[in-house]
């Protein structure tokens, strides 16, 4: 029983989030319009974050091994809370939400956050499936959140159909694993899996599992939903999908494929690195000709997922380190970038690239911070994005996979084109048409941008803290 009580203390941050989510829901029942609901939700995330360190003291295996309290879970939960906080902040000033049911909106948002956090600690395939589904179900709704918007509905629909099939495949894979081993607990599987890996069914099962996870991370060929959903969904949600869901997807991949099956799954490095390469290349190439910003960012996230996944594919300590660092930095970069898209959409009512012309003249702060974020995404020094890519390349080189490193760098050159093209429109072009007055000051959004841009700059030059954290974490994990 002590185990379970300890477990409750572990779940304290999640509990706070649930509490605030229900609060949001109730508040929304009474008044729907209050912008304070968002602030309230933000408060919930903040309190949850404050309570997070205390939860690390709980034991390692919780709830009959359904959850684990390992360093990775700690890492992912922190990332998720940061992302959730940023998502709420960019939602606060999202104009298209002005007439929506805010109570509902923040309820769902916090629910996703809770599911993400649970997923981060899931240590049993059953738990993984449940958390995966609970993230997905809420996400489908959120993607189709703008009820009167056909684009949003279509996005929701596509997300749902694609997701349901993918998770169905994963489920089938899990059932096969259960059939092969008779257990779903990951630590138990570690001990046994060496016996089954020669069976074709094991490979089939793992591959089917990979479908669902790859769907979350939008790895090629499980990525097809990504651009459509990001484009149609409300922008803060797209941001959350692109970062939160991906974080969890990668957490699953790390836990299942690297930590659990890793050593016995001989095809993994080859399979994963092929997938990573295809992912980054396809993402980058397809992004080149995009004109809708959200769609462009969607393809960019696909490419970024490829880089991140390469860290897992290499799966050396250096690879894992690079993977974690990249994921962290990616969360910051991408949230900021989507924030910038929201600001610009607020003032221009457009997400088309050509309408970004001369945006620098209208709102220099946004333009400059957005440019920093884009350059960081492109991986140019001295920004954090560079360091992240640097580690990935370093991991590849260290593992004597110099060819992979070469592919990564060439990809990053291709990527620069479309990132810089956005910058080109914002800075090099003159504003077209009549100069619309800049929208009202959107404090939160600017704050998000400044924070993420500054973080990218600082992490690029002084990554000590994060690096130390990750190194420490790897030593413990």
């Amino acid at each position: 029983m002590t185990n379970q009580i300890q477990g409750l203390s572990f779940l304290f941050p999640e509990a706070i989030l649930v509490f605030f989510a229900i609060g949001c829901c109730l508040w929304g029942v009474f008044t729907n319009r209050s912008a304070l609901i968002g602030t309230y939700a933000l408060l919930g995330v903040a309190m949850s974050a404050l309570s997070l360190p205390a939860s690390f003291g709980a034991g390692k295996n919780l709830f009959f091994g359904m959850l684990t309290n390992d360093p990775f879970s700690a890492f992912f939960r922190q990332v998720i809370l940061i992302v959730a906080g940023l998502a709420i902040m960019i939602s606060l000033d999202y104009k298209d939400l002005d007439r929506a049911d805010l109570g509902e909106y923040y309820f769902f948002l916090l629910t996703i956050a809770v599911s993400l956090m649970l997923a981060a600690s899931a240590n049993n395939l059953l738990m993984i499936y449940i958390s995966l589904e609970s993230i997905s179900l809420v996400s489908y709704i959120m993607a189709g959140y703008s009820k009167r918007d056909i684009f949003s509905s279509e996005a929701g629909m596509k997300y749902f159909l694609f997701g349901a099939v993918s998770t169905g495949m994963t489920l089938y894979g899990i059932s096969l694993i259960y059939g092969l081993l008779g257990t779903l607990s990951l630590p138990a599987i570690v001990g046994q899996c060496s016996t089954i890996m020669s069976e074709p069914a094991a490979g089939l099962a793992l591959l089917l599992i990979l479908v669902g996870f790859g769907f979350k991370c939008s790895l090629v060929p499980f990525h097809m939903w990504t651009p459509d959903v990001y484009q149609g969904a409300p922008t803060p949600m797209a941001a959350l999908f692109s970062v939160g869901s991906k974080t969890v997807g990668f957490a699953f991949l790390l836990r299942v494929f690297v930590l659990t099956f890793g050593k016995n799954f001989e095809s993994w490095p080859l399979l994963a690195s092929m997938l990573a390469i295809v992912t980054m290349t396809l993402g980058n190439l397809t992004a080149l000709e995009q004109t809708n910003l959200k769609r462009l960012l969607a393809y960019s996230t696909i490419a970024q997922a490829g880089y991140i996944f390469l860290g897992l594919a290499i799966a050396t300590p250096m690879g894992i380190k690079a993977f974690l660092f990249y994921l962290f930095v990616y969360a910051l970069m991408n949230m900021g970038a989507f924030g910038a898209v929201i600001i610009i959409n607020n003032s221009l009512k457009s997400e088309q690239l050509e309408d970004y012309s001369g945006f620098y003249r209208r709102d220099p702060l946004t333009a400059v911070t957005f440019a920093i974020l884009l350059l960081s995404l492109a991986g140019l020094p001295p920004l954090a994005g560079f360091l992240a890519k640097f580690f990935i390349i370093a991991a590849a080189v260290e593992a004597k996979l110099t060819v992979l490193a070469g592919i990564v760098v060439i990809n990053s050159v291709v990527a620069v084109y479309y990132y810089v093209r956005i910058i080109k429109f914002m800075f090099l072009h003159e504003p077209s048409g009549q100069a619309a007055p800049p929208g009202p000051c959107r404090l939160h959004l600017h704050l998000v941008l400044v924070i993420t841009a500054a973080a990218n700059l600082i992490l690029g030059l002084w990554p000590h803290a994060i690096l130390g954290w990750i190194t420490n974490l790897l030593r413990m994990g």
Partner: protein
Amino acid sequence: MVNVAHLIPLFPFLAFWVNILLGKTLHRASAWISIIASLISMVLSISTAQGFLAGAGSYPLGTWLTFFGQPIAFGVIVDPLTVMMLLVVTVVATLIMIYSVGYMGGDPHFSRYFAYMSLFTASMLGLVLADNLLMLYIFWEGVGLCSYLLIAFWFERPAAARAGLKAFLTTRIGDTGLLLGIFLLFAATGSLSFTDLSKANGPEWMLMAAALLIFSGAVGKSAQFPLHVWLPDAMEGPTAVSALIHAATMVAAGVYLVARCFVLFAAHPVCLEVVAVMGGISALMAASIASVNNDIKKVLAYSTISQLGLMMLGLGVGGYSAGTFHLMTHAFFKALLFLCAGSIIHGVHTQDIRLMGGLFYRMKTTGITFVIGTLAIAGVPPLSGFWSKDEILAQAFGPHPVLFITALLTSFLTAFYMARLMLLVLFGKSRSELQTHESPVTMRFPLVVLSFFALFAGLLGSPWMHHAFQKFLAFQVPYPSEEAPSKFVMGLSIGVSLLGIGLAYSIYILHRRFLPEGIRAQFGWLYRLLMNKYYIDEIYEAVFVQPFLRLCRLSFRFDMAAIDGVVNGIANLVRRAGGILRRLQSGFVQNYLLIQTIGVLIVIMTLLGKLCFQF
């Protein structure tokens, strides 16, 4: 004894800067700054000469740079050759500058002209003082620059600008050879110093190649065949410039260079042979062209080429002192001739000799000095040209019959065309209504002084003064002793000179025709060939210049189309690939699922295949 030799070029150099920077304020006074600077140089040169006679010699000044671990010193060489050159250059330069005061009087860029002249003087003096090939090369290019600037001095004239370009480029071809020669010499011997040349030992072929490459520099500078084409065009510059640079001093630098490196050539008979043959070709070719040309300056220009060729020939047949002797006398009488021509042009405002005539009576001083110059170059004793030319003929006589005949023929032609020039310009009746006037005193004074030199400078090397000049040159220099001219050679030389003058007289004064009908009809092709300078310019244009320019345009097009095309092509290819790949995203969700399923199937196939077949 104070060494002052290194200060000689300094003053003209300072004068250059003063004139170029303060030109606007100085205006007329800039001429006197340049003249005074040259005068100081002249005085210093004389004192250097005295010092040399008193036993002073070369001395180093410092290190310029390190070259393959060897310091390249810049130092001053003081030997008979240098002393002679110093005196010639300073005297002629000073006189010509004085002349220019009058000649360039009305020019708006008066001070710039004198600045360039001073810079030239400085470079030329530096050239003759340089004690190693590298320093020589530096000043060598310096005089080339001044030549360029002064040829293109009247920049509004497109022809002048073109001529400047041509001069610089043509000489640069030779200079590049010289540079390579310097490299090669250094590679072979490890030294560039002139004093080390005599003990130069290295691979035979390298030394030979070096000597030939060095000679190519001389060919360019001294306008020898095949790089002679620039000199006639260079006559676009002011005539005083032509006198100083393109007659007396700079073009002689090539001869000076060969003389300076004479030991190197002398050690390889083949090289000497080449020098002699090239000189002979140039001499005869230029002399033949000069015989038909109608531009007073061009005639003199070809005459210069011819005379320089003769000097080369002299050096080539081993006549070290003969060549240099002719260099000195030529400097005086050719400068004189050019200045006279300048004076005439100044008076009649045309350069076409067919429009002149009878000027002797209206321009007394110019006329008399012109006659003296003509007789000197034609080799009429006892004027200076006779003695020096005689030396060369004497050297060639005997061992080199072909060269000797060439030289003799050149002498004949020289006498002929100079007489033709003189007769057409000065005598006979005026053939057009040209206003003429005698030139101002600043222009006449140098003429008188130079004609004095033209009259008597040759005596220094005559038997009457026991070949003092030759002995002076051989002083401290271990060169092979040379033949003294025999009576036979002398007689022959006088004979061809008089023959040439006589022929010209009979054609142009007695028959008063430019060319008798019969001859013209019979030798029409020859005449056209000569009038067109053997079509060498046209051949160069067609064989080198135009194909090269075409090559340049072609390479530019290649650059744009091929190289940049590949770069842009790759970029476009990548972008187009993106454009195609995005079409995969059809918008139909079931297509997406299909792609996903196919992807999974492919992976399964490979994985299963790998498991089953262990590939």
